[in-house]
């Protein structure tokens, strides 16, 4: 039992403007960063599968750099150091949101490229062979045959990445981005209570992730190729150790 619980405070926090806007900011940041990371990660994955040694080295270095360093450190670099290197980043357009977007995208792209690489490699090489025998170009084979089949494989790990990113957005509170956790901590420090403001934030995260899980299950069915879309119960999300990036 909670020692004291002010349900009125809890509900007013839950429905307050700062929480709602903070959650929206967190969600927006997650989505734009994820989409950018998928695009960048796709090309990094192609690079790491390239037959050219130089291209593979560039891809490898990218992954090494962004996976071996803490996300928070990268965020500090982008927000504080970058404007001292190039003056354009010292201007007003370079908001905390944009800085967080750039950082999380570049960071996530490194992880995403490995997921996409695994997805591409999981497609039977016979599929490509058949495409070439028909006279399809490499690009057509990739677009029509290999990528759709790889998508099926990468949906569950990409779902994991979405969740990780959503939680990483709270790092951006440090560069004064008004996201969800900022709303909660501001409330705790103004009211000197913890239970209600933190629980309200927790509810927001739970709701966002729950919606994602429903969407993911739908997407997986969409990429299952049987004439009656298979109705298997969505497999439980495997327990993964807490992701400390």
């Amino acid at each position, binding site marked *: 039992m909670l020692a004291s619980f002010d349900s009125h405070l809890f509900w007013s926090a839950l429905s307050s403007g700062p929480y709602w806007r903070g959650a929206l900011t967190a969600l927006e940041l997650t989505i734009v960063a994820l989409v950018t990371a998928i695009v960048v990660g796709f090309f990094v994955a192609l690079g790491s599968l390239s037959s050219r040694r130089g291209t593979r080295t560039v891809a490898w270095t990218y992954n090494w750099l962004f996976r071996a360093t803490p996300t928070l450190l990268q965020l500090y670099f982008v927000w504080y150091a970058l404007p001292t290197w190039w003056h354009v980043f010292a201007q007003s357009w370079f908001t905390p949101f944009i800085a967080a977007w750039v950082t999380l995208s570049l960071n996530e792209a490194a992880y995403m490229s490995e997921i996409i690489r695994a997805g591409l490699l999981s497609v039977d090489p*016979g*599929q490509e*062979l*058949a495409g070439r*025998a*028909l*006279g*399809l170009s490499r690009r057509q084979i990739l677009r029509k045959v290999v990528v759709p089949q790889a998508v099926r494989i990468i949906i569950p790990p990409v779902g994991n990445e979405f969740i990780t990113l959503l939680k990483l957005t709270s790092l951006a509170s440090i560069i004064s981005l008004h996201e969800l956790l900022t709303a909660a901590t501001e409330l705790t420090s103004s009211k000197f209570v913890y239970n209600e403001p933190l629980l309200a934030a927790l509810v927001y995260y739970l709701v966002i992730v729950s919606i994602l899980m429903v969407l993911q299950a739908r997407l997986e069915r969409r990429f299952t*190729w049987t*004439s009656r879309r298979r109705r298997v119960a969505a497999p439980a999300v495997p327990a993964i150790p807490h992701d400390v990036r």
Partner: protein
Amino acid sequence: MSVLRAHGVHKQYDGLEVLRDVTFQVDPGQVKVIVGPSGSGKSTLLRCLALLEEPDAGTVSLEDRRPLPGEVGMVFQRFNLFQNMTALGNVMCGLREVRRLPKTEARDQAMAFLTRVGVADKASQYPEELSGGQQQRVAIARALVMRPKAMLFDEPTSALDVELVREVLDVMESLAHEGMTMVVVTHELRFAHHVASSVLMMDGGQIVEEAPPEEFFSAPKEERTRRFLALVE
């Protein structure tokens, strides 16, 4: 006049010679069956003919020029149907993407070829839902719809359950009767006996012997062929 020709073809992988100076041709309407132990270079020869592999030396030609996409059809041991497309989608794919046909025209032609190989009722099914024999017949339709000048079959029945072999061989036999030029790598010696214009024995990356089927099976000239036939029959 030959349709499909390989002249002095060499191919090696990592220093291993898989094809050693193979010269070989198929005349229009001929069916050539290639037999031989695994590792003898049969599949590699087919892949060179289909331009899936570039020979290290020598040339492959179709009517004395380089084949265009889809002009040499290939059927694989493991079918290799596109898993993300229905049977119909598989057969339409080449028409849409390579031939750039409009959708309705591609669909009509694809349906005609699915009917031709007896799987029209499976048009909207995905490969995963079809038996091996049905998948292989869809794969044959996918190659045929491109109107190839020659068809290559790489052990088309080796991955099939015994009772499904017949339906695929029947389709191949009727193709042969219609005058399709074919090169078939297979262990189905009865098919070779019935349908082949000539049978080739490959070993160690070379063609050891070529003869009409009656002669090849009853009176092989080469010791290597005799040993092989004694083992498989």
